[in-house]
């Protein structure tokens, strides 16, 4: 999508004597909405990050300078949530990409029942975080979930709740999010697979390239930009999204699954410390932007694909 943006419009045109106001008129609703409900909140977050602003301690409210930011450097919970965020995003994006790519390659083949298979494997894409929690809570429930039936059959033990054990809760949450996240990659990659010219494969076959070589030399280079872009979008999304962890684990047990946005939400909403929450938000935004630019640079996005 960045590619689409970088390009100049193919045919900028205006009818002779046509109204020059038209493009501004057309785009003004979008601009007004985004100014009012994206830019303005963003600026007020920046402003609050330099203020003491706590509804429960109004006597301290006022200019804070960099105090919120220095407090943040010594805050163990901040560092802990940052490390967990990195772990969470890394695990989710890499696993979702691996499964999504494999799935896209499979359903791109021609076979009987392909349409139905596609609809079924893609369906969790449409499921919300809260609904994912609902479903996986039923599956993970120690007395009525899958583990109980497995234990009945002699596999595993009774009474283990994967969500309350700090050793298992990470992978339990990763699995639930994976279930709903893989279709996103599969759909995007499948769409891109279908734009590879078929004659390329035919030519390669004639030259005696086997399927693995065709995959490495034709498919992967073609998919490169789509993969870079979808992993980036997904990483940002997984970093920011709190629905699943908020409802499934609540950030627990004992803060073991608290991401940075979840920590911010707890600080701002439950702790009423808007000033500090705003400083955390600002730092999160800067980290995200920095990592994304670094990622695009390192991956040579949009570069020549040979």
């Amino acid at each position, binding site marked *: 999508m960045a590619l*689409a943006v970088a390009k100049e419009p193919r045919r900028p045109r205006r009818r002779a004597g046509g109204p020059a106001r038209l493009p501004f008129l057309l785009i003004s609703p979008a601009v007004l909405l*985004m100014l009012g*409900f994206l830019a303005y909140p963003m600026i007020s977050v920046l402003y609050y990050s330099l203020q003491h602003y706590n509804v429960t301690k109004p006597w301290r409210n006022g200019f804070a300078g960099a105090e919120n930011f220095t407090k943040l450097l010594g805050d163990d919970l901040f560092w802990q949530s940052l490390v967990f965020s990195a772990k969470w995003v890394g695990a989710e994006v890499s696993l979702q990409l691996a499964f999504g790519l494999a799935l896209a390659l499979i359903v791109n083949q021609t076979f009987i029942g392909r349409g139905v298979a596609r609809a079924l494997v893609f369906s969790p894409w449409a499921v919300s975080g809260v609904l994912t929690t609902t479903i996986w809570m039923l599956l993970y429930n120690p007395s009525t979930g899958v583990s109980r039936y497995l234990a009945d059959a002699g596999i595993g033990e009774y009474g283990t709740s994967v969500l309350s054990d700090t050793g298992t809760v990470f992978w339990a949450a990763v699995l639930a999010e994976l279930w709903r996240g893989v279709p996103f990659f599969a759909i995007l990659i499948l*769409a891109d697979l279908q734009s590879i010219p078929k004659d390329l494969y035919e030519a390669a076959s004639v030259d005696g390239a086997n*399927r693995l070589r065709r995959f490495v030399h034709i498919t992967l280079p073609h998919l490169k930009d789509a993969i870079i872009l979808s992993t980036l979008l997904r990483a940002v999304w997984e970093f920011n999204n709190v629905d699943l962890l908020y409802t499934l684990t609540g950030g627990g047990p004992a803060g073991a699954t608290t991401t940075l946005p979840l920590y911010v939400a707890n600080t701002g909403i439950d702790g009423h410390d808007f000033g500090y929450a705003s400083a955390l938000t600002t730092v999160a935004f800067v980290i995200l932007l920095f990592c994304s630019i670094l990622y695009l640079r390192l991956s040579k996005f949009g570069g020549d694909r040979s």
Partner: protein
Amino acid sequence: MTTAVTTQQATVSGADTGAGDAPPPRATRRGGRGIADSAPRWQIFLPLGLYLLFTLIPFYWMLLFALRPAGSTSLVPWPATTAHFDKVWNDLGFAIFFRNSLLVGVASLIMTTVVALAGGYALARFKFRGRNGFLLALLCSQFIPGALMLVPLFEIFRNLNLVNSLWSVVIAETVFQLPLSLILISGFIRNVPGELEEAAWVDGCGRFRAFCAVVLPLLRPGLIAVGSFAFVHSWNHFLFALMFLSSQEKYTIPVGLNYTIGAESVDLGALAAGGVVAAVPVVIVFAFIQKWLIAGFSAGAVKG
């Protein structure tokens, strides 16, 4: 998907004749699937079968709990009961939550599509001052964590007297959907050759009529993709609704589900039935639009 795509191509190339340097028909770019790259059957069906199990068992588990009577440990939801559905729909208020979610979903769909269509057209067909800056802002906005905007957004809606109104959720959803929708739609419009519109102008159509008659029909797969994105997204979104809606008759389905999950003694049957109610509309929408979604994306969203 093939039928839809081929009709689209037919229209493009059909109307294009005589426009001089017509772009090559899309058919050549499409269809990496095929004979040349086909795999042995077992290499398709074994992993696909395993993955289907992983996808479908959770859905089945939810249906099982929703349909079997309380206290049953059977793995088959038979004899089925509608008691749980009766409870969530009538006693727990899911009938109202469902209506609210539907209102929010449809309103966000309409707002997002209309605003993004107008803006996307401007971005695709005009070069104007501030255009590149705006495009950059669109990209940067992708990094704004929605969850972290809750406090300032709440204050804005409080000032606008929209707290505990479904409009607050509609506006917030639309705004967070807009950047991506704008980028996608302007990409789709750029893919429609400008000559088509020009030809219609020569025939005496105004810009608006030419757009409706020539461009709009070609945008169908893309618009369906963007619109369904907006609907599914706002149907599913949780945090804004949780924060901005305070009285129970305004709750949307995810908020209602969240309170069912958090209830003192969780009634698993009712929880599962609530989950089914939440899932049915999006799964239906998804089954219907799935083929358009892929066509929409490959129509140039990712590749430009």
